[in-house]
């Protein structure tokens, strides 16, 4: 542990340029196609496994950063990540290839499932199974709510904003965009930049 002191100095050179030499647009498409076809039960772990661990297209820090941008923006994590990573690797074409690859397998699958459900959705055994599936999906969303709360809330008072949002949408039937803008502005103002946070250690 004698050379531990040398480490902080090295960190300053860790820039955003972690991309390997050249990644073709087709490679981007193919990688996201694989993720899009195999990511059962949520894309984030699959994205990390593929982009960070297997391909080294982004490093872990950049991945977390991109994920937090994806979460703050409208749009699904899956496609936002495809755009951000695709853009980094191959510009506009890379982003396009990433999104198409990501969406294609699920879209084809749900296209077929939709037709099947339309024809056979009234069968008693399908209705029975779907009742269980829908209940399980509610539990799944609730678990997402809990784990997101643990991960991304930065103040106890944030629960007030959560409650405000739920009550506005569910109880008073205020539209989602109005709620989003009104409560969003309140919450952003609440989290306004404070002087103390600016203490960035300058060497």
């Amino acid at each position, binding site marked *: 542990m004698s050379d531990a002191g040398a480490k902080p100095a090295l960190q300053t050179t860790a820039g955003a340029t972690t991309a390997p030499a050249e990644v073709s647009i087709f490679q981007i498409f193919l990688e996201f196609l694989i*993720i*899009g076809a*195999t*990511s*059962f*039960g*949520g*894309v984030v772990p699959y994205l990390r496994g593929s982009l960070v661990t297997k391909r080294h297209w982004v490093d872990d820090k950049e991945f977390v950063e991109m994920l937090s*941008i994806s979460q*703050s923006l409208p*749009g*699904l*994590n899956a*496609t*936002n990540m495809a*755009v*951000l990573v695709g853009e980094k690797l191959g510009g506009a074409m890379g982003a396009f290839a990433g*999104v198409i690859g990501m*969406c294609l397998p*699920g*879209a084809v*699958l*749900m*296209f077929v*499932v*939709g037709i099947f*459900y339309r024809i056979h*959705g009234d069968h008693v055994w399908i*209705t*029975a199974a*779907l009742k*269980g*599936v*829908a*209940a*399980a*999906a*509610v*539990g799944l*969303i609730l*678990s997402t709510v*809990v784990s*997101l709360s643990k991960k*991304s809330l930065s103040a106890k008072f*944030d*629960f007030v*904003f*959560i409650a405000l*949002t739920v009550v506005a*949408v*569910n109880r008073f039937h205020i539209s989602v*965009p109005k709620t*989003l803008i009104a*409560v*969003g502005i309140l*919450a*952003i103002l609440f989290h306004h*930049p404070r002087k103390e*946070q*600016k203490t960035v250690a300058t060497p």
Partner: protein
Amino acid sequence: MNQIPALIRVFSYLSLLTVGGGMAAFPEMKILTVDVHQWLDFKQLIHLYSVGQMAPGPNMMMIVSIGQWAGGTLGALAVLIAFFGPTAILAFLVAKGWRKLEKWPWRTSIQQGLAPVSIGLLLAGCFSMAKGAITGVETAGIAVAVLLILLQYKINPALLVVAGAVIGLFTFMPK
């Protein structure tokens, strides 16, 4: 009747509401697709959404099924582009700008402020879906069991949704 323009309008609007996750748009999706345009009924919307949780990729691909029902293959394609196009373009534009804003102090404020709101929208979507999906003790039991298992163990959620189907088959099958 040609539903394509309505499909494009509705789904590009819904796309911009998916802050924090697809579920955030669910209350508006219910109003627009079920009540206003009557492309499907509430039960079908819940079924499609839930089945969509078992599919790989972005977890809102059930929109393709709605598009297909309302406007055939072209409808499915229109919905796909309308739902993923606007947010993809927005993410693309932000990808460049956001990095430059790293020093901007309000950047952190925006992220910290949007976090509780997006969680609230997710929860609101969940409640409005639960109104149709949780119909008795059995369904409530399944939902709570899935929640507790996911919080306790590292298990693939898609497997639990499949398990929900099996339990549903045995529990709700008319004898």
